[in-house]
């Protein structure tokens, strides 16, 4: 990993999203797709709720419990994809997966989420970092939604 970073800043970003998550809490409204995912090995538990209109992600919510990496990552995810087109959101998701599997960091797409780049060196934690993204991915992919494993889907 050759990207230079400010460790202090990254710590602050992560703790901030962990302690004061953005878009946390689900809504009870029609028009949302909700996906519930769990990481059985550690008990992380994440629900992500998405509203899509005309190919644009108009709203994203998340709720769940878990470790700092899981919670902070979900919050960053919600912030990153809100208001984006599906294509753009998918590009960000892919950029995040690439980063945590050590395949390069796209600062432009990932913005604050680059603070989690250290996860690439912690294989058992990659699942934590991607849980929110995986749930999000399923909310927007009907096909995946139907086949996916460990998914509870509430389409209202």
């Amino acid at each position, binding site marked *: 990993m050759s990207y230079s970073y400010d460790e202090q800043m990254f710590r602050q970003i992560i703790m901030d999203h962990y302690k004061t998550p953005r878009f946390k809490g689900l809504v009870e409204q029609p028009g949302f797709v909700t996906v519930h995912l769990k990481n059985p090995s550690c008990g992380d538990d994440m629900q992500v709720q998405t509203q899509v209109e005309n190919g644009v992600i108009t709203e994203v919510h998340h709720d769940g419990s878990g470790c700092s990496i899981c919670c902070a990552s979900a919050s960053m995810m919600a912030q990153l994809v809100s208001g984006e087109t599906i294509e753009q959101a998918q590009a960000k998701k892919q950029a995040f997966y690439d980063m945590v599997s050590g395949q390069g960091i796209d600062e432009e797409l990932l913005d604050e989420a680059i603070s989690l780049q250290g996860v690439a060196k912690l294989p*058992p934690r990659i699942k934590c970092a991607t849980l929110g993204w995986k749930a999000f991915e399923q909310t927007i992919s009907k096909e995946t939604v139907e086949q996916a494993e*460990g998914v509870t889907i509430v389409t209202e």
Partner: protein
Amino acid sequence: MYNTDWTKDFPILNQEMNGKAFVYLDSAATSLTPEVVLEKMNEYYREYGVNVHRGVYAMGAKADGEFESVRDQVQKFIKASSREEIVFTRGTTTAINMVAFGYVLPKLQAGDEIVTSMSEHHANFVPWQVVAQKAGATLKFAPLDANGAVTPAALQSVMSEKTRFVALNHMSNVMSALNDVQALSRVTHEFGAEILIDGAQAVPHLSIDVQAIDCDFYAFSGHKMFGPTGVGVLYGKYACLQAMEPFEYGGAMIDQVQQFTTSYKDAPYRFESGTPMIAEVIGLGAAITYLEKIGYATIQTQIETLREYAIQQLEQLEQVEIYNPHNHEAATIAFNIKDVHSHDAVTVYDLEGVAIRAGHLCAQPLLSEIHQGSILRMSLQVYNTKADIDRFIAATKKASDFLDVLFL
């Protein structure tokens, strides 16, 4: 690569039995286990021998990874469409019981029919008897042809709109008759029923493609295909597995446990409760790798050659009665020596260092079909040699003088 000097891979072949070099002709009961499988299991215990599925530390993740990678390996090995269709079990017996009690019984209504055959191993027979009895369903038997196989027409002849489930072997354990399981699945599905294939004897000998067969379930054991004891596989179409009730309840298979209610994981994890057979699953992976390195073509050629060689000589012995002479893909020869109880005969082989099996071979229904109380079976695997057959034939010639064993 595997060693063509088989005694390198299977040091047991260097053992003696009753003072004679050991000739193993009982691979249909359990195959010998190659060194690579033992090494892989020892490696687990010596290098990362911790529990799986909860490993939040690196060594646990390593154990998890090795364990779960065998699921991928099995998926490719039997050509399942997804890794989630592979359930690790204690063996074929457990796998079949899981389907019988977790899938079939809950759906059965009085008057429904289950079809099996008289050539099944007890593991694929008794569970269906019990399930039928519990549900008030009727057990029907697809008739056998002269080789002991169930033809598609034979299956068709006992199917009806009441048939809910069919359970047949891929290759039987006594006659070693090969069933056309793809055609049997087709017939089953034409009647709107579902089918389980008992592949315990087939997997060591034939390449399996569960999608081509289109069976709903497929079961096999590790210990018959160069793997360790204590492990087997249940394949199920994902929708079938998802519709199946758990067989055992406990850790690892749960999602959330509350005081009065519990939710379960999706298949296949819902069927793997408690600490799994970790070393055994890892050993199974090594066995599959080993088997694939040898290749089914090599196995088949070797077995067919040896079997023909043995049959030719047995046919010259008029005291020998062979029950499956024409099953050319067979890995077994089922026979008796006239006027000699199988148990008397087997001691003669034993003292000659030749291990073959005698008795009902967990196939009492078949034995009653062929009107034999007990039987002898020799069975082959790739590590057998022409010299083994010569030793086997020499022992066969002595078997009529079975009292000799008392006066050596």
